[in-house]
């Protein structure tokens, strides 16, 4: 393990370097897409924790993005700095996620899906009808971009680096959580709840935590979305968006740490890349269907199979070469 760690660090550093230089020379459209990708990666990674690691389905991730986005928007519009507003949004999501986790203690599978779906709808209706707070259907506009000390993230490139920094920290935090005893407890919960409990695990606490932490990441994504788009309205956080985040997790590879990043890239960037063709949405949909039918483990599954084959043939070649 220890011999692997430096290599992982090197790859992480290279990836970060690529992300640092990637937007240079590109137009603001490309930069906007990258920001959008990072934002959805955070939301999907949060859902992956709840669904992929702890095995509890949630169709409410968009509503947590909404809670985070509205909280950040309302507070920053009232003159709060982003650095103060975003944590409030994230914390609020943590608390709401904890509350939503309670039904998860009693119901499973489809029933839990419905409970969370209902929650998302409830959030949508509140956001649309409480005009005094959320601006109703008109939404909230002119949301300011963050300013940290003398540095303003008003420009596209500056905002991208800001998003990248926040995302890197968030992913690092999640990496820590997954490798902590909590992370292992989440997996134990998914694999066999009864056995996990028999080993002395407090499954109740772990389930609630899985929901709360996953939701908090949704909230962080929302806190980025508000200043990114600079306009939010209820439809951006409707059930359809939750399904989109779910698609990212599933396409990327359920329960795989880096899966959501790939899934988000696929959902955010692929339709844009295919845009030149007339039937691009059909092509995109067919690709997703084919992927799910042929390789249910998602993009990470394809990559792993490929690498495993490569290693196997290499090993075979090595044994052949020996005598």
């Amino acid at each position, binding site marked *: 393990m220890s011999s692997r760690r430096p290599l992982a660090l090197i790859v992480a550093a290279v990836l970060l370097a690529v992300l640092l230089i990637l937007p240079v020379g590109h*137009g603001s459209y490309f930069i906007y897409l990258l920001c959008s990708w990072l934002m959805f990666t955070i939301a999907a990674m949060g859902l992956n924790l709840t669904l992929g690691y702890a095995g509890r389905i949630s169709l409410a991730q968009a509503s947590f993005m909404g809670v985070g986005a509205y909280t950040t928007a309302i507070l920053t519009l009232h003159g709060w700095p982003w650095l103060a507003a975003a944590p409030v949004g994230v914390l609020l999501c943590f608390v709401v996620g904890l509350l939503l986790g309670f039904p998860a203690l009693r119901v499973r599978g489809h029933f839990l899906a419905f409970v969370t779906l209902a929650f998302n709808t409830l959030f949508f209706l509140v956001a649309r009808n409480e005009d005094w707070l959320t601006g109703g259907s008109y939404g909230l506009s002119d949301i300011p971009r963050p300013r940290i000390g003398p540095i303003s993230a008003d420009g596209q490139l500056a905002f991208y680096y800001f998003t990248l920094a926040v995302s890197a920290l968030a992913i690092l935090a999640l990496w820590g959580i997954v490798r902590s005893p909590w992370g292992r407890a989440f997996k134990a919960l998914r694999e066999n709840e009864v056995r996990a409990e028999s080993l002395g695990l407090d499954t109740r606490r772990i389930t609630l935590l899985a929901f709360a932490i996953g939701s908090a990441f949704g909230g962080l994504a929302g806190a980025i979305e508000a200043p990114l788009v600079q306009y939010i309205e209820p439809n951006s956080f409707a059930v359809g968006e939750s399904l989109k985040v779910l698609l990212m997790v599933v396409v990327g590879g359920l329960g795989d*740490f880096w899966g959501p990043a790939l899934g988000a890239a696929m959902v955010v960037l692929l339709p844009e890349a295919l*845009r030149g063709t007339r039937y691009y949405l059909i092509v995109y949909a067919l690709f997703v269907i084919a992927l799910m039918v042929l390789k249910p483990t998602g993009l990470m599954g394809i*990559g792993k199979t490929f690498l495993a084959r490569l290693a196997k043939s290499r090993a075979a070649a090595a044994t052949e070469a020996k005598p």
Partner: protein
Amino acid sequence: MSRRNFLTAAAFAVAAIGLGGAARAADVVKLPCVCELSGAGAVSGTNYRDGAHIAVDEINAAGGILGKKIEMTDYDTQTDPMTSRALIQKVIDDGAYVIIGTVYSGSTAVNMLVAQKAGVPQFTGAEAPDITAKGNPYIFRTSSGAEKGVPALTAYFKDTVKAKKIAISWVNNDFGKGGHDVFLSEMKKAGIQVVADVPSEQGQVDFSADVSKIKQAGADAVFVYLNEEESARILKEAVKQGLKIPMVGEVTLTGQKVIDLAGGAAEGALAHVGLATSAPVPSIQAFAANFKKIYKRDTDHNGIKGYIAVWATKYVTEMIGKFDRKAFADKMHGLTLDVAKYPHMLLTTSWDKTGELSRESFMTEVKGGKQVITGTVPAN
């Protein structure tokens, strides 16, 4: 998480995002069409785009704008505000001179901020009141906003129908809410009581509860402020439940798409229309006939909106004599394009300093499966 997984992810991520675009220099002027070509707004967006393309072909055949050919590329927003914002960003990066679209108000409210920041003029098909109320000097309407259209109906309800009690069925998005709010204040001013206030969802299929609510409220007339497909559904449901009161709409209710979808149920529906393809104006009828010849289907008013957006771009650019976005926007404010001198505007059209549009409008009714003009409302 093994090293292998990490390597896979890294390789994929780099491959997935390494998609750059190559710029191509040519002696053309770029008028990108950013529209709703799929999703809930596909009907409006497609007509808007097709109308715009007719204008592009006409102008290019006649030598272009100031000698430059127009290059129009279509971009589909999927009726999603966030995507529309990304696309407006993209067309600005690609050097758009003027942007044609978007049609839906929700998308326009988001993406017009981007065009404003970049100083690129934008012709929207949106009709929500707030679009021109935000002091954006680069946004221009191609049809009147609800705050101009809805009041034109007040006189009709008050004097023709002599309504004392009225119902409203509206779509609960920012387009519908804009019309709804203007309507309520208009009715209050006119002393007409609103007895049923029925919101519905965008894309709603079942209107039975909505219609029975209106029926039970005992209204003298109902104001329908819905998008095309939902308008057709409520008309059908009204026939089914035997609702006999006048159904009156703003713009959409007597549109061609609604008539096609609702069939006989659209008969007798009334609407105030800023731009009607059946208007008794030879230039408009010629346009509608030409549209049908090219695309083998009828257009609604959105086709005309796209068409005049492109022609206005040509006229105004040639007035200022150069491709200058700021001068273009300045020139547009307070401008009137007289149809006698600028025939492709189809009707004399004026823009005020907010980008709001004003021109003659019509009262229409569906008779014999066709939209028929029953009266003319002067420009306001």
